[in-house]
């Protein structure tokens, strides 16, 4: 992954988490299309959000992020996830 894309994903996630309390009531479970730390639009489906990003941003510098409060669970194999950041 190129650094610009990775930085964009990290920045957008941090911005989304900052705004999460305000977003949850209306957009929980939706996908936010984000660019440069700003939310461009919301979509009910991840693929729709990704397609919209591909069409709007030719440089691919954007990310999609699910509006959700809780971390996902990995069930029986939760031990397989370590605590290192990727």
């Amino acid at each position, binding site marked *: 992954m190129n650094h610009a894309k990775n930085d964009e994903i990290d920045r957008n996630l941090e911005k989304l988490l900052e705004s999460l309390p305000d977003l949850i009531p209306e957009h929980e479970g939706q996908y936010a299309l984000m660019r440069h730390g700003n939310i461009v639009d919301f979509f009910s489906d991840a693929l729709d959000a*990704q397609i919209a990003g591909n069409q709007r941003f030719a440089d691919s510098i954007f990310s999609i992020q699910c509006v959700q409060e809780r971390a996902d669970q990995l069930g029986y194999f939760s031990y*397989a996830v370590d605590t*290192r950041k990727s």
Partner: protein
Amino acid sequence: MPSIQGNHNGRAAIVTIAIIDAANYNNHKASDDRVLKGAFPFQALIDTGATRTMIATRVVTRLNLQPVNKLDFAGLGGVSRRNGYLFHVAFYKSPPANASEVSNIQVFKKAINGGELSGENTFDVLLGMDVLTSGNLHINKVGTFRFLF
């Protein structure tokens, strides 16, 4: 309704699936042919305790998937932030004769935003509830399972 079936050993149910990149193609919803591009068989463990489907790093590497986001996962070591990918899951109606065979594939239409699973595992994919709740999963006592989707 399409379906696949297989065997379990009382401890785990493994199914052969394909993972197909969905992040870089805009016409997946309209074209099955495009969806099947790059299909490759992987071994998936059915895990009803996993809220999202997870793919091993070797799957990411094999398919050259690019992350679309990052996702938080709760494990025994606490919350871990992992790369998230956008892909389609496809089921083989029967075990493929070779890695490139796509004639007997049935594609699960919903795109999955799954995470990357680190570490060495005997399986390639954890098939989570984001897929399983879109169909009907039957696990029975005679050692077989069936998934209708």
